[in-house]
């Protein structure tokens, strides 16, 4: 258990999704300031282990900095920088009554405390009496310097000047901002030239410098190498600023005519800039500057000893990449601590101090460097999003203060003897503490494990999902390849449909109810969409037909094996005669549904990518659109039936002969036309061999019809009509309003989609001299469109059935059907051979 460390949760704040990255800062004695990025700043007492005050600001707090000498706290807000004095704060905290133990003092900070009205301040830094404010203007970063007044009371903050740095185009910040909505605060730190020779200039402030986390004393040679001789000669503190666009800039503060210059670019948002001793040489002098980027890039800046001949010392930049995103980071004397959000890791920087020593072994050392960066030690503390070192470090072991994403303030005590493994003999006083540490560590590991578990679970889920999708894809693709051979019923996933007339607001409309039947062994899970395209068959080739196609999408959640999904879509309104319609069904899977919304949000290419698998195609023809009148209402139809029954037919062979009957003569023709029908009636007929019909229909309905093969011609006629109207050989059938009435007669009266009445008559006729028996289906209507459409539909059905039958039973039948059809004012007769 090398990396085990004790975690002690001090308090918990609830917060989420704040506009700025949170920050913890020690100050005001043993207190901790927490700024979570929301409007509040919390003051937490580490001694009393409780929240002492909540400062409520008028806007989201971006940064805070404290001034030790003058006992001031500067807080930057959207509207500017506020200054609160500690005595005031303490008086307000203590003035609240004795029951303060229960609730912290709440202070509303009004605009009276506003000292610098600079908008959009993101980061603050205080260097002796100068307050530096980094803010973002439209296209540039602006670093403004304000002189803080000598007296606390005075409110005049003299602006000393400002430095501008244009923003680079590629804003690396957008990534994080898009995901979490949190703006990364630019890092602002101050580097002092740690000059052992001159205690006079920095004697008062040096003690403070080493303690606070944004001031470092840098070893002189490195300072000169990085920031120039002039800054070193002037002993000017240097402001280092790590921007969210990845640049690390520096500015010698007290050098006349100095400018904000770029020191290095990390090419990813800078999370942290710190300094480390690495090798203990000078007292408190850092020998190495460390900058950490959001995606794990670590840059160590230190002095490179020059080669014996050639140049002198050089500034060495060692770059490496630690695994994982870096949420926050911290450096102590030898180690770099960083949190990935799911774990706190530590990297030993002193290991790397020897990385560059021999130049001749460059290849080897660089490998070692990479290895060292790749193998940080895990401390098993998760969800830390802000880190700070406590001001008091009494015991000598490393203590860190962390803020977790849930808002828990934690003290993380790293085991003292992590390097030397021989520290197993603990004094008895420490045993109790050790057990407590162990317990809390276990708790922390549990929490971490649960995080990992959910991650693995979701990955497995996605893989299983993907597997299903692939299975279904293969199944459907195999179907497509063998579509011609497989009858529809054998497809495991298919669509069938039903037409249904409905009446809404006195308008009839034809709806299609599509049923997706999943008889495959796989579940159609979330992400699948049933897509149905409807387009008229007759126009499908022309340009206007393309435009008249309509697409319907039905996303669905889960369709288990054996389940069906029923969707309904409007097919046409009454009066529309664009039948037959083709209904093409397909299943679409969108890849983005595999991942969560967050993951897909930043992969825009994935959002549109999907798998589209065609299922099957249905045809809605005229027969489907008929509204059959109940036989009781139409005495004429009964007559027709009796008439048709009179006709006797006995020929075996069937041929088609269609003729036109003009019952009432031409429209302008005579007075007798008015007696029967006002308009001219068109008719068409189709003749089918009775034997053939008997075979197919009887075969088909043998299980339904107990009369079996002994079906009479009368039965044959009615069952033919029944089959035409109600069966669904191709997957589409006509729905029935109310009960389906059994067609006992061989005459059917119906209304077509345009509202015309249609009469379908089936009768047995003798064809030719060889007494071939055939069933003739006659279609009569006043509308030519209806006659044409129905004729086509009947032909199509018979053709389809015929093809099926050929495949199923008997192929050697030499019988042939000839369908002939004539109409007066139609095109020349067409004939089809089957």
């Amino acid at each position, binding site marked *: 258990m090398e990396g085990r460390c004790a975690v002690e949760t001090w308090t918990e704040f609830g917060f989420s999704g704040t506009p700025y990255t949170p920050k913890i800062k020690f100050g005001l004695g043993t207190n901790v300031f927490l700024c979570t990025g929301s409007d509040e700043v919390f003051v937490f007492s580490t001694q009393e282990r409780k929240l002492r005050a909540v400062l409520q600001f008028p806007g989201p707090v971006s940064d805070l900095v404290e001034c030790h000498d003058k006992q001031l706290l500067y807080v930057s807000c959207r509207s500017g920088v506020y200054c609160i004095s500690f005595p005031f704060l303490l008086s307000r905290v203590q003035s609240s009554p004795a029951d303060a133990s229960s609730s912290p003092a709440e202070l509303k900070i009004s605009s009276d405390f506003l000292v610098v009205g600079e908008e959009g301040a993101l980061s603050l830094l205080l260097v002796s009496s100068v307050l530096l404010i980094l803010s973002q203007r439209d296209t540039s970063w602006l670093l403004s310097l304000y002189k803080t007044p000598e007296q606390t009371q005075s409110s005049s903050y003299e602006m000393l000047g400002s430095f501008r740095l244009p923003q680079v185009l590629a804003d690396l910040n957008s990534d994080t901002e898009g995901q979490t909505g949190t703006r990364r605060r630019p890092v602002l730190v101050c580097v002092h030239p740690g000059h052992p020779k001159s205690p006079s200039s920095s004697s008062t402030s040096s003690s403070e410098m080493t303690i606070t986390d944004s001031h470092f004393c840098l070893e002189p040679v490195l300072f*000169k190498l990085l920031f120039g001789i002039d800054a070193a000669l002037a002993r000017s503190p240097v402001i280092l600023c790590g921007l969210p666009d990845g640049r690390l800039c520096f500015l010698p503060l007290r050098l006349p005519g100095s400018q904000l210059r770029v020191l290095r670019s990390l090419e990813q948002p800078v999370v942290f800039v710190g300094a480390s001793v690495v090798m203990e040489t000078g007292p408190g002098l850092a020998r190495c500057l460390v900058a950490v980027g959001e995606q794990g890039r670590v840059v160590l800046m230190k002095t490179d000893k020059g080669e014996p001949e050639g140049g002198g010392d050089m500034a060495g930049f060692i770059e490496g990449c630690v695994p994982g995103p870096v949420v926050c980071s911290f450096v102590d004397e030898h180690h770099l601590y960083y949190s990935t959000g799911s774990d706190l890791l530590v990297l030993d920087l002193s290991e790397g101090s020897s990385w560059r020593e021999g130049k001749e072994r460059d290849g080897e050392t660089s490998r070692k460097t990479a290895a060292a960066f790749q193998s940080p030690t895990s401390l098993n503390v998760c969800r830390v999003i802000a880190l700070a070192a406590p001001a008091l470090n009494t015991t000598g072991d490393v203590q860190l203060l962390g803020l977790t994403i849930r808002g828990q303030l934690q003290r993380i005590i790293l085991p003292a003897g992590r390097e030397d493994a021989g520290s197993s003999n603990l004094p008895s006083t420490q045993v109790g503490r050790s057990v407590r540490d162990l317990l809390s560590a276990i708790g922390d590991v549990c929490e971490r494990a649960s995080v990992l578990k959910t991650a693995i679970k979701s990955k497995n889920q996605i893989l299983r999902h993907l597997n299903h999708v692939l299975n279904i894809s293969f199944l459907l693709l195999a179907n497509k390849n063998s579509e011609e051979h497989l009858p529809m019923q054998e497809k495991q996933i298919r669509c069938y449909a039903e037409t249904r007339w409905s009446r809404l607001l006195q308008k009839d409309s034809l709806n299609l109810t599509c049923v997706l039947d999943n008889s495959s062994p796989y579940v159609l899970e979330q992400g699948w969409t049933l897509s149905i395209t409807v387009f008229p068959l007759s126009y499908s080739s022309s340009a206007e037909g393309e435009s008249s196609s309509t697409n319907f999408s039905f996303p669905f959640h889960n369709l288990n094996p054996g389940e069906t999904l029923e969707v309904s879509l409007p097919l046409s309104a009454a009066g529309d005669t664009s039948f037959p319609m083709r209904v093409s069904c397909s299943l679409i899977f969108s890849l983005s549904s595999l991942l969560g919304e967050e993951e897909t949000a930043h992969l825009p290419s994935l959002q549109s990518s999907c798998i589209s698998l065609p299922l099957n195609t249905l045809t809605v023809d005229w027969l489907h659109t008929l509204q059959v009148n109940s036989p009781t209402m139409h005495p004429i139809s009964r007559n027709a039936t009796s008439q048709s029954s009179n006709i006797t037919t006995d020929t075996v062979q069937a041929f088609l002969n269609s003729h036109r009957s003009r019952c009432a003569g031409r429209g302008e023709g005579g007075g007798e036309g008015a007696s029967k029908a006002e308009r001219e009636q068109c008719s068409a007929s189709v003749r089918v061999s009775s034997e053939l019909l008997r075979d197919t229909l009887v075969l088909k309905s043998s299980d339904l019809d107990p009369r079996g093969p002994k079906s009479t011609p009368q039965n044959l006629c009615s069952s033919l009509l029944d089959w035409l109207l109600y069966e669904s050989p191709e997957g589409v059938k006509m729905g029935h309003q109310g009960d389906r009435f059994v067609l006992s007669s061989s005459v059917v009266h119906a209304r077509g989609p345009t509202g015309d009445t249609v009469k379908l008559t089936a009768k047995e006729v003798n064809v030719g001299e060889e007494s071939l028996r055939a069933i003739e289906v006659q279609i009569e209507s006043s509308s030519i469109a209806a006659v044409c459409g129905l004729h086509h539909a009947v032909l199509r059905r018979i053709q389809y059935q015929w093809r099926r039958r050929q495949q199923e039973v008997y192929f050697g039948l030499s019988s042939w059907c000839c369908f002939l059809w004539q109409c007066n004012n139609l095109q020349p007769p067409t004939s089809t051979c089957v």
Partner: protein
Amino acid sequence: MSDKMYQPTNLLNKWVQENNELVNKCKFAFASSFQQQEGGGDTLSRDQNQTPLRSYSSEFHKLLRKIQGVPPLVNHTHLELSVVYNACVCSTAQSQFTEAELLLIQAIQRALQMTGDEPVASNRTVFWRTVLKSVGNTTFNTCVRYLLCLQWAIWLATCQLTIIQELKEELSSLFETLCGGVGDDKKNEARGKSSDIPLLVTDPRGLVELLQICTSIIQGAERLSEGQSSEALSALQTASSLPAPRALLAYVHFLSGSCLAHMSRPQMALQCYRKALVTDACCVSALYQSMLIYRQLGNTQAEIQALRLLQSTLMLPSVTVPALATTHLLSPSLLLCSQSLSSLLSVPSALSVLHSLALKCVLHGRVSEGVEHYLDLLAALHSEDQHGVHAEAPALPRLPELYLEAGAALLMARRPADCMALCNEVISTTLELLPEKVVLEDPEETSEAETRDMSVDGEDRVGMLLWTGAAYLLQGHCHTHLKDWKQAVTHYTRCINLLVRVRFKKKGFQPQITSGDMVVKQGTHLCILQRLKGLSLAGRGISFTQTDQLKEALRDLLLSLQASPECVGAGLWCGEVLWRLGRRQEAAACWEKTWSFTTQHHSAEGLPVYLQEPQSGPLLDSTELRHRIQELGPN
């Protein structure tokens, strides 16, 4: 409440009262902040003023919206236009020019709807001409004039000088009516006392005066930068009689001086600058320009005097930013934002002035004064209050050079210990970074090589080496001054050892140690290198002569002359050594040659002060030498 809505007179009174209250509050706030500003000496509180100004501005706008919610009425117009004036003044003071202009135009159009004719707004010149004509002698004539004042201010602040030029006559008649009409003014004041007259936040009369002088200043500056000095001069001379704040009058005089300086009349220009300074003692640009003229005229004493004045003025806390008395809500600095004016007015930073002063003093024999200035400069650089915010040119030299210059000055002032301390500072800073070997490229490529070197890690390695060398050289001089010959030799040797690290590389040749016969351009690294070599070898040679190591002395002096033939000390001492060695003819020849060099060249002029020959070492008396030659002569 609803009753009041139907009583326009009451409503009017209420609005007037509201306006007057606001105006009084605003005036009071501004006056108190102005006083505070005066007392605290804080010049930059314009930012602080913004916040209350913003709130007043929004209050005025709110009031205006209320008033404009009612259809235009004749008896409301005076109030309405007054409130528009107040709101626009506030907006303009916050630099919201377009907003103010829009408000102004809309208000005038609304007012004109009552008179019936509506002017076209497409062209501003035409618009104002028609407005002025149609307003004629109506009751709100004065109000519209006040608004024209504001429009003028906006044009000035946005540098739309052409429109101002086009409407020159209208504006000057406006100026005359507002300032000249005394009776009218009295009447206004009399009316202003009663409470039902809407008050204004700034007095339009004062505003128009300010506008007149600011316009003259800006136009003068523009013409001057376009090269029309004489036209600018005549316009400025008429402007100098205008009533105006002192600071602005000083600008007028200053610009007149600049015109004259452009017309190559330096003495008259100096007169004008003097007038500017008399008018406003803080007109630093006049001082700076006079200093430049003195420098041009070669009047060193006057130049030093001017520099001293300039420096002390710049060191005053309030003068760093040209503070113009802001008695008006619309400050002159808001109105004078022309680019050419600010470039004319620009003055180098106090520190760079101090540096030129120190250098001038040292170079022209006022060593002790120069030393004091150098020490002041160094102290200023190290003070906590120093912040590198003055980035304008001419910048200071690099800090090590500054240290070396100060060291040389200290040595000249016979303070060798202080000089050594400064040099130690430079050496300790640079020593660790010095390269073991460095190649100096062909002179033609030096600049390129420098930039490349700079880009490696921000420092010019050769330059650094030369600084360190110069520091050792100065330390050698110090020890020579103290007659500590052994230490002097040590330090000169350190310098020489550093210098031989530099190899010179000519294009296509191998790197080599530099020699004296190369043609050297002034100011380059190579030039400084050769000069350093000459001086350090000469110094060591002279030190050897003092310890009677004549052979070593002769070698060094000869090498010195080879590196830098114009070294007078080396030449004279070389002759002396030869003389002591008994080579009297050669010695004589050497002396003669050296004297001929000194009459021919003054090559040391372009060099930094720390590369001048030391005046403090052991000296040879030229007359005595000539005497010796004469004695030798007959031989």
